[in-house]
């Protein structure tokens, strides 16, 4: 248990400390150190879970599913923090950011990590909601960090769309809690995922059906599923590069994780009825549409970061489709895909940020000649681009084969 608390405490303390540290070089190192501490604690949690099967307390529960996401999140958090230290120092030296905003950036980076880890490790659907909303709130000001009109517009869109989406998810959560009243009892038990999952068959299918639609639309907005995806390319392309990396690589996973947990309960409640596969079918539909729309939009992009944002939508669509299909093989494929996508996409954003920094623009046709000046960078990016289906359909992308 102490490993779990330590993992949550590292970024929480980090956020408070970094909000108070005025020195820029020190803040960069501290940011890396706190992220490393979170990763170490997450590995410890992983080791404990592999020995005991699961870790549980009143509000927290880590089992075989979320432990892998915890390790992945802290790992990408650390790698991005390592990259962000020299990158943000460079940006600051160019005069695009003031010292105060750098403090905001570092504190919010840690706060964002904290909310994601909380969302992944909590057992209560209510706290899950609070944490996912917290993740939005902590990144809104990061998206508009440069204060250009474009970035402010992107942040506003992100704030409003995700705010609305997440509000609908709260409505769904309320409905689930209402359905659970007579089954698991009132209070925290009514929102405990674990208790709900055990008693899923006794939940009212009519209420659960409506609840899932709200929850899917709500959390789906954060996943970037298609009719609700408009915030994603803007927010990912206008924010500073390390923020794009963690938004694309991590936040989308957390939202999808929430959908999967809820699907498990809803499947239990609807089993045996006429609409037993409703949750799966909805997810498959949204996933497919997202995949198709994103692939067609990809071809029209001129901004390199927007290009990779659409690629994120496409990958999330594939994962949603596979998870909607269910079954051990499809789920395994989706989770493997999630792992590869997180690692590759955060690496790509880091690489692309580096390239556009050198070229001084984000427009694709103007970023050129890198193989002569930066051969090692090009090698790295080719490796990272490999798993993008739009560039080479269905090769090496696990879920589509």
């Amino acid at each position, binding site marked *: 248990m102490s490993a779990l608390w330590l993992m949550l405490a590292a970024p929480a303390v980090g956020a408070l400390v970094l909000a108070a540290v005025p020195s820029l070089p020190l803040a960069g190192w501290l940011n890396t150190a706190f992220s490393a501490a979170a990763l170490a604690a997450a590995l410890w949690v992983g080791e404990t879970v592999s020995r005991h099967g699961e870790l549980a307390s009143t*509000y927290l529960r880590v089992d075989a599913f979320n432990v892998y996401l915890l390790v992945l999140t802290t790992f990408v958090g650390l790698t991005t923090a390592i990259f962000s230290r020299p990158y943000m120092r460079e940006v600051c030296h160019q005069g695009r950011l003031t010292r105060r905003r750098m403090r905001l950036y570092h504190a919010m980076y840690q706060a964002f990590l904290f909310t994601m880890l909380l969302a992944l490790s909590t057992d*209560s659907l*209510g*706290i899950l*909601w*609070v944490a996912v*909303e*917290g993740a939005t*709130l902590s990144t*809104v*000001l990061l998206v*508009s960090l440069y*204060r*250009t*009109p*474009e970035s*402010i*517009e*992107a*942040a*506003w*869109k992100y*704030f*409003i769309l995700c*705010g*609305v989406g997440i*509000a*609908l998810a*709260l*409505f769904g959560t*309320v*409905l689930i*809690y*209402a*359905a659970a*009243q*007579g089954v698991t009892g*009132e*209070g*925290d038990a*009514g*929102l405990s995922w674990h208790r709900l999952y055990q008693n899923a068959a006794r939940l*009212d299918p*009519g*209420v659960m*059906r*409506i609840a899932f639609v709200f929850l899917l639309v709500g959390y789906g907005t954060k996943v970037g599923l298609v009719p609700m995806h408009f915030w994603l390319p*803007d927010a990912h392309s*206008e924010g500073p590069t390390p923020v794009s990396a963690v938004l694309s690589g991590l936040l989308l996973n957390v939202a999808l994780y929430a959908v999967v947990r809820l699907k498990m309960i809803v499947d239990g409640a609807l089993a045996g009825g006429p609409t037993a596969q409703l949750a799966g079918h909805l997810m498959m539909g949204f996933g497919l549409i997202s995949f198709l729309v994103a692939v067609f*939009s990809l071809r*029209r992009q*001129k*901004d390199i970061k927007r290009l990779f944002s659409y690629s994120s939508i496409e990958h999330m669509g594939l994962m949603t489709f596979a998870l909607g299909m269910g079954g051990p093989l499809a789920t395994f494929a989706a989770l493997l895909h999630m792992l590869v996508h997180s690692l590759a996409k955060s690496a790509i954003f880091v690489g692309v940020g580096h390239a556009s920094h050198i070229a001084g623009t984000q*427009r694709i046709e103007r970023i050129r000649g890198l193989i002569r000046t930066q051969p090692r960078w090009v090698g790295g990016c080719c490796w990272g681009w490999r798993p993008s289906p739009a560039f080479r359909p269905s090769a090496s992308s696990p879920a589509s084969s």
Partner: protein
Amino acid sequence: MNAMAPPLLGQSLLLLAALTLFLSFALLGQTRLTAAIHQFAWQGAMVAAVTALVAAGEGARHLYLSALLTLGLKSLLIPWMLHRLARRLEMEREVERLHHPAVLLLAGTVLVVFAYWVALPIERIGGHASRNILAISLAVVLIGLWMMVGRRQVVAQVLGFMSLENGLFLAAVAAARGMPLVVELGVAFDVLVAAILFGIFFFHISESIESLDVDRLNRLSEEETE
């Protein structure tokens, strides 16, 4: 709430819920900023009153705290912050021109019908009054959503967002007698942070486009023109 509850309690709950919905409509059509903020504050007070009534009727202690939280946050603190912002941005007397006010309001009534239709299958939880209030709260949520889509001014959008959250609080109270305390506090904290962020954004937006009209926020699009 349930069949046992005295009819007076059920009736007054329904009345307050209906008033909440009425205030949603008033907000939807209100073009004067100061009046809109007042209406929003009253809506928060209605939700707090519903919460307190349920607390009294059901003897649920923790709901008193939730009622107090709603009252303090939704009908005092946030309206006060919005007033202060409006004064500092010198837009107290500003009147927004609506393009199609009749369509805006008629669509609102359609949303109410839709909300009742969605709530129809929900029978097992609570009795008649509870389902009615659930439908009303969903209608408040949807009208808040519609307000964010249909109105072009940033403050009106924020009011839509906040009244949408009023609908959520109402739903939590009506359908489930409030959420567990930890969650309630977490949600309140998120709402507060969101309100502060909105305030920061007003300044950023008015600095960057010299107006608070979201139609001017149109630099990012699929086909980038340069």
